[in-house]
């Protein structure tokens, strides 16, 4: 679906933000990209939709080099929700906000109408249809940006730091949304340093450090990498710490309460 081949990106200022990234994202996968601020996560995402073009190496989407097409064409397939909703909400009403991209993509009037209603319904925003997006709460704005993207039904959804500034309930809803997207066959890429949020989703985890991919695999194995995570300044999930502490004693194998163990291994926290 998306292929990064030995991608390097050097900023106009001379900073090497990506330094030889090779990474393939297959259709239907749920991938988390983690790493400290400045590790190159967002720069990588911007390459997927051609907002940035690699200094060297190639990025292809469905076999098409991003250099040979436009961001508009790529965005039709890949919807990106950036971190700050205030950086994109501008319309007079919530429904206009959702319709904006659909009109840009040339959807018919009836289709726009239908998709807008569907998107607002899906994210519980129907009652705000005619309100200004600016009066929404932080959590609602976030959901609106997701509705805006899902309305044009891209095959890939990329979420850039979706949990920043969100409280427990809002995070829970976000988690549900991501599960829902995965189950409907969407490819979901989550860029986040919120490990506690990612862990229950059990995604494929790509760890970045100084513009490179330093680890890549299922959450369960990557999150057990201890030192590798430490050197990338990624915190391991608390449950993993607990599991390791309990399990790693040679004199005493891990025999926690059955339930607790199941959660830890299953990756989800009890409620």
């Amino acid at each position: 679906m998306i292929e990064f081949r030995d991608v390097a990106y050097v900023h106009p200022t001379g900073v090497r933000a990506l330094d030889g990234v090779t990474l393939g994202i297959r259709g239907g996968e749920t991938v988390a990209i983690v790493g400290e601020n400045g590790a190159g996560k967002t720069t990588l995402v911007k390459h997927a939709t051609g907002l940035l073009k690699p200094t060297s190496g190639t990025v292809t989407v469905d076999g098409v080099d991003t250099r040979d097409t436009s961001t508009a064409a790529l965005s039709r397939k890949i919807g990106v929700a950036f971190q700050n909703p205030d950086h994109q909400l501008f319309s007079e009403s919530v429904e206009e906000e959702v319709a904006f991209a659909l009109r840009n993509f040339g959807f018919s009037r009836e289709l726009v109408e239908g998709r807008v209603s569907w998107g607002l319904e899906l994210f519980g925003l129907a009652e705000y249809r005619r309100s200004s997006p600016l009066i929404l709460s932080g959590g609602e704005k976030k959901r609106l940006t997701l509705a805006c993207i899902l309305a044009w039904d891209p095959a890939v959804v990329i979420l850039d730091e979706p949990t920043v500034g969100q409280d427990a309930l809002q995070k829970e809803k976000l988690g549900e949304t991501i599960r829902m997207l995965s189950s409907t066959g969407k490819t979901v890429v989550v860029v986040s340093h919120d490990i506690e949020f990612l862990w229950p989703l059990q995604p494929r985890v790509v760890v970045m450090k100084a513009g490179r991919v330093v680890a890549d695999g299922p959450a369960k194995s990557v999150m057990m990498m201890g030192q590798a995570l430490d050197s990338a300044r990624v915190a391991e999930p608390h449950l993993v710490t607990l599991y390791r502490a309990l399990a790693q004693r040679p004199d005493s194998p891990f025999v926690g309460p059955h339930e607790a163990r199941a959660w830890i291994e299953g990756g989800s926290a009890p409620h």
Partner: protein
Amino acid sequence: MILEIDGLNFRYPDAPKKAVDSFSLQVPESEIVVLAGASGCGKSTLLRAINGLIPHMYAGDYSGDVRVGGSSVKASSMRELAQRVGFLFQNPENQIFMFTVERDIAFGLENLGVPRQEMRRRVDEAIGLLGIGSLAQRAPYELSDGQKQRVALAGVLAMRPKLIILDEPTSLLDPKTALDFVDLVANLRKDVGATFLIVEHRLDLLVKVADRMVVMSSGRKVLDGSPSEVLMGDEADGFGVSIPAVSRVQKLLAKDGLAGVDRLYDAEEVAAIRQRERR
């Protein structure tokens, strides 16, 4: 008591409901108190009523009393309050005004008209406390998010406030940087004896250093106790507070008959207790 809030009510003009509703709280000196609750529960309003932005900058229906260090916030001027209550806002970017770190740290002192020598001493002290000596001559745009956070805090510390409010201080930081920041707060409490009131969603980070946790919902205080009382209890879940996964497991370990889990431990500690149990 450094902070006393007695039956505070506040309603913004034209708002249908009170943002803060019959809220009372007493905080002794040098405590680290975490204030938690879902978005829109009134935390931000409460914080602004403590540092005086309410009622001095934002008017509304105000009743009850807030006292910091014994004197009423309502009756004090912003000049006095700025020296008594330090406020670190959520986005450090929007509280760094000057072109160099050093001059920004001095901003509040310059405004107060503190003499140059005294100002120099206090700026250097704040720089020392936060370990940002190497940044003193930098411009704001040359700083990382974590560094901006420290610079903004230094500007607050230079005023030598008794009470320091941190409004979601780690929301923009990555986890390791956030942990460093929490350690820094714990050290500051030791070094300068200040009292901290911290609003934060990421409770897992603060469990270790907090003395107390207060949960708000719809403008009211609904829970108030030690972090373990609040997080190991059954009520916090319902108020939009994110219970750290480890706390959930600990609760279960405790139910499973694991003695000694009456306060919150970090993962390593739980493992050690479990180990002892098994012998």
